[in-house]
């Protein structure tokens, strides 16, 4: 089976029929990880354990008793999920060398279903950032930087300029996961999403990025950033695969009291053909300042696509959208200030050599362990939580949060099924350009289209749509009603089928994957 196949439709069958073995799949992925090392997508590659898991999976297939679709499938996990026996660093000095004694619930679920964990992926330090550039292990490179499609469109500025300086970012903070999926080194990856951290890199790397409803998937073992907004995110190459992953991960977890108790029924996505009963909302405030004209045009084309297929398309208003970033800024830094308090060097993680007093040891440990971004957010958060500021900033932000969440309630109450918006303001920026602004500024700019869904706890998904003029992926976002992932994914799948997003043409992958791959029509959408 080609590395490019869909899980349910092709790979699962191939494994069951013995046309490919879990060990082969695992070895192929591991080899590809090695040859794409320059992407810096992985912090830890779990070669030994992965091969062992693949072996065990192979035994199960031989006995005719696979655990399910995910049995034997190589998966990558963002490095802010605890993995027993495998280093978990959050791309920070604070946790370098930290080996967790337990698996995050979502990791355990994957392993229980036979998935093969190939490695932990790179991110912005403690998931703070929108570029995957601010981690202690260096930035992640977008695989599309090395694609035929991008190289064809780049104009070299001079003879001496090599492609080294031209590479573009993955977006963030789950950039490593997005790059891993995009470059075929795994079939799916876990990310996290607090302000857009799964959907943003998904858009820049041309993969599907799903942010589930808050409360659907357990956060137990996901090192927390903002307890009231964090969710584990799912990155895959197609919407169907996202549904498979969702089916394996969703559901109540007694270890996470913020997971709802409703029984979750995994589903297969129907092949929607008739969209005439659908009502799509186009929120006018998402025509944000800085939105590239290319994306505006693409968004408009998508709208037309739905209209022409018979769906009802309505312009709607989410009036408090412009305040969602400011609101997020306050709530996020406040919760971060609280969540980062656990890192004091005593029980785990980095510990400073300072011995004079507990407080001075804590201070030195945190000074040495955290980067500027993290420290900045902790200090800001503590400022907003000071007695004299609490009502004025923190409580105020909580009130604005309600207004933002209510905006969505109003719109969905008025008969809208799904919202369609852009995911990012533009295609991926070159690294050299991106780092010219600081992390907070960038995050404020880049999170604008994704953040409100986290505020309101709604499910949202990025679907890769077309290539930009520079040959880079651009995605569009669908936002659904709470816990209506089936409807959201069904519409997303229909849309995915319409746009026929082109496959990335990467030399490294083509060398490894000798199986005949289907030539897909290049984007009929741009």
């Amino acid at each position, binding site marked *: 089976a080609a590395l490019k196949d869909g899980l349910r439709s092709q790979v699962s069958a191939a494994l069951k029929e013995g046309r490919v073995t879990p060990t082969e799949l695992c070895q192929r992925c591991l080899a590809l990880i090695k040859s794409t090392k320059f992407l810096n997508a992985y912090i830890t590659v779990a070669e030994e354990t992965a091969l062992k898991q693949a072996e065990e999976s192979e035994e199960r297939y031989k006995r005719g008793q696979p655990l399910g679709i995910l049995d034997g499938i190589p998966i990558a996990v963002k490095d802010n999920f605890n993995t027993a026996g495998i280093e978990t660093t959050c791309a920070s000095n604070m946790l370098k060398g930290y080996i967790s004694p337990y698996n995050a619930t979502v990791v355990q679920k994957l392993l229980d279903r036979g998935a093969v964990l190939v490695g932990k992926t790179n991110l912005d330090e403690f998931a703070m950032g929108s570029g995957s550039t601010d981690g202690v292990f260096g930035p992640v490179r977008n695989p599309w930087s090395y694609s035929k499609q991008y190289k064809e469109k780049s104009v070299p500025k001079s003879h001496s300029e090599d492609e080294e300086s031209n590479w573009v970012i993955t977006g963030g903070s789950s950039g490593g996961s997005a790059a891993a999926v995009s470059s075929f080194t795994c079939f799916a990856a876990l990310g996290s999403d607090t302000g857009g951290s799964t959907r943003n890199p998904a858009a820049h790397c041309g993969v599907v990025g799903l942010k589930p409803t808050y409360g659907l998937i357990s956060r137990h073992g996901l090192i927390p950033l903002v307890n009231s907004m964090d969710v584990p995110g799912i990155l895959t190459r197609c919407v169907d695969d996202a549904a498979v992953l969702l089916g394996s991960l969703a559901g109540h977890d007694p270890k996470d009291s913020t997971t709802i108790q409703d029984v979750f029924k995994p589903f297969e996505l129907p092949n929607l053909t008739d969209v005439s009963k659908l009502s799509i909302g186009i929120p006018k405030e998402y025509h944000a300042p800085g939105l590239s004209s290319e994306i505006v045009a693409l968004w408009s084309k998508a709208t037309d696509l739905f209209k022409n297929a018979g769906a009802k398309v309505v312009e709607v208003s989410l009036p408090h959208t412009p305040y969602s970033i400011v609101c997020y800024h306050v709530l996020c830094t406040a919760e971060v200030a609280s969540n980062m308090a656990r890192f004091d060097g005593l029980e*785990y993680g980095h510990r400073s050599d300072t011995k004079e*007093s507990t407080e001075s040891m804590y*201070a030195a440990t945190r000074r040495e362990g955290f980067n500027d971004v993290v420290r900045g957010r902790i200090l800001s958060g503590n*400022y907003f939580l000071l007695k004299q500021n609490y009502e004025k900033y923190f409580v105020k932000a909580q*009130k604005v949060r309600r207004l933002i969440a209510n905006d969505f309630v109003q719109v969905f109450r008025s008969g809208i099924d799904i919202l369609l918006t852009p995911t990012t303001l533009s295609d991926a920026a070159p690294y050299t350009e991106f780092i010219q602004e600081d992390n907070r500024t960038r995050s404020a700019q880049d999170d604008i289209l994704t953040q409100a869904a986290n505020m309101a706890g709604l499910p949202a998904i990025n679907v890769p749509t077309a290539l930009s003029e520079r040959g880079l992926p651009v995605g569009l976002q669908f936002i659904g009603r709470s816990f209506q992932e089936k409807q959201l994914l069904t519409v997303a799948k229909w849309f995915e089928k319409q746009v026929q997003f082109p496959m990335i043409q990467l030399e490294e992958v083509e060398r490894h994957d000798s199986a005949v791959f289907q030539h897909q029509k290049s984007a009929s959408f741009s």
Partner: protein
Amino acid sequence: QKVSVEVLDHLEHLALVDFRDSEGVERLQKAIQFADQLHEVNTDGVEPMDSVLEDRCLYLREDDVTEGNCTKALLENAREKVEEYFVAPPGNIPLPKLEERETFLQGS
């Protein structure tokens, strides 16, 4: 208005994280300025929202012991320990005052 040195010092004590340089202080100033935009929104009569799941009940589970006995595994990650204790330097010693501390704020 700029944040006073007293407040900055207070924050360093609370957060146990330091403003390493003027950039750090600038960063806070900008963050506050940014947050001030919140005051443009009229929130009269609006209740603060703690959680998007506020309409649901937080549940209780039975008080049964289902896991534990993992002292060894938990101590594994600590750098300084004695028998089953995490070892900390002496407590009840507050961080030195501004004048006595090695902090960037001293110069302010």
